[in-house]
């Protein structure tokens, strides 16, 4: 029933939703969520390959662990930056944060 193209298709749609989120949202935190979705889609791809193409490749599942770490790191640093920006500018809206100089 479930074959590789199906899994990759679902991952593709998930990736597209992530891209839409990143491009359309004005708030930094929502952009970070969009990136999380895109990374989730990447993980789904890897698991799909792990299941259907290279089942014995342990490095595949290890690669999923690396992506999970990447998601955690990216979210953590993103929020730390947002906190310090927020402390000074009282807003996390991307439109207001365009200029670095002011």
């Amino acid at each position, binding site marked *: 029933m479930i074959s590789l193209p199906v899994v990759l298709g679902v991952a593709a749609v998930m990736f597209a939703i992530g891209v839409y989120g990143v491009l359309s949202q004005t708030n930094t935190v929502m952009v970070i969520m969009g990136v999380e979705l895109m990374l989730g889609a990447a993980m789904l791809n890897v698991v799909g390959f792990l299941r259907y193409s290279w089942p014995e490749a342990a490095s595949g599942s290890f690669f999923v662990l690396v992506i999970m770490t990447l998601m955690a790191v990216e979210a953590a640093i993103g929020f730390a930056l947002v*906190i310090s920006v*927020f*402390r000074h*500018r*009282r*807003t996390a*809206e991307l439109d*207001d944060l365009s200029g670095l100089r002011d």
Partner: protein
Amino acid sequence: MVLSALVRGLSQDLRGDSRQPSGELERAIVVPDAGAWLLWGIDVTELGFAAVPSPTRAEALVGPARVPEALTETIIETWRRMPDGARHVMSLDGPDLEGRPLEELLREADERSDDRGQPEDGHDETEHGHGGAADGGGGAEHDHGSAASAGPPGGELGAPPDVEALVAPARPPAPQEPERRDHDLQRAGDEQQNMMPIEGRPSSDGLVMEPIEVQLGPLGAILPGGLVARFTLDGDVVGDCSLEATLSAHWSGAEREDALWDPLSAVAWRLAASGAREGRAPAASPWAAIVALELERALSHVAWLRSLGSLLGWAELAELAHAAVRPLLAERRAWPVQAVPQGPRRLSANARPPAALIEAKARVERLRTLLEDSRRLAARTRGRGRLSREEVEQNGATGPIARSAGVERDERQADPRYTELGFNVVTRHDGDALARTLLRISEAGEALRLAEDALRRAREDAAAPPLDAEGAASGATVEGSRGPVQATVVGRSTRLQLEAPGRAAALALAARAAVEEEWSAALVALTSFDLSPWKVAG
């Protein structure tokens, strides 16, 4: 430290010495609060009621014959929200307070809810902004009866989902909420203020957040009934806090009608008033007066300790305090307020052995040793609501609050009868919630020792050293459980002017101590001031 406490406690607990009424308790709304009834000589749990602040689950409403005016609106609102089967129990021998009779209030509440059969149509938005303001009192479960309240299975594990925020008279939301707006369906703009970006005062970590307004009281909160506390929360840290004592009771039934007094320390007031009238020392039996006063002080401190135990969620402390209160109540009933200062007539006839007094002394002593070196208590109370000695003197705070900051001022020092009993002032120095707790428990222990000695002297009708009437004009000062209480005769007439210096200062200091503290720390600081909801002067 945790393990040693557990092991030591295990042996103690297995002996099962802290018994509680195991019968099924009825959930009741207690007006003004279970602690006040304790000081009036009635333990609500022994009457079979467990104090619960949430009206929707209460089965009864227990109140004094006459209700202070400040609570009328809240009581009507509470009665309307109680389930239909609820019954009301009017306690007879509570203090006769000024105000409207309880039945009349409840009848009015019934009429109000009849003519307003259908739910109100428009009602103001109770939730707005980030956290949504809590509508009304925090409705903390006042589990005075925590040791005994069975309640739903959630009751004991500290998750009594039967609590609902009590409604402050200012904004009563209708019980039936009209259809809630579904967020992502209605995208229409809203009339609320546009908040881009968030303004406001940065909290201590430089972040600005939406303030949440929360009100505790006047009924059902952890604070004494009648005390209203309004907080502005900045996240979970208290931004600012305002306290208001809303209750006032005239000396009803006596001919001197204008004296405002505080039923929670009735003996002290009555002694001050009678002292002001007949010159310094009440003629009849000075020792009996001291016994009654010290008993009231011990009972007030131990009852306060019980409410602190339930605030901290420390069931063991609440149970031990409950066990210490029971003999004190029996002893207190032997010294009714009305009999002061003469003391009960039958005292001299058959000398009642002070069994309950000795039992109470032993239990208070065990409480003191538990708290004295307890790291568990220190973990929650050290450094909360810290007052410096200058701050206390500058604000004119008195009583245990002042003595715990190192100010050695106690009206009993000047009294020769106390010096004969070997009284010395108990003080502490760091002025925080821990110091106040330890000071009160040691003061309670000492008060019982004084009461026992005075009782022995009263039974032997020993002569009391004469009070040097240093011509204190026409006033008398007595050290109540929350500070000195003054009575001065006004001009030639029999009218009395009663004040409690330091009472307003206590409210101000408590409000200031709660600011910039995390929510639970702020409540610990507030409770540690043992505030009285009865405003005295003015």
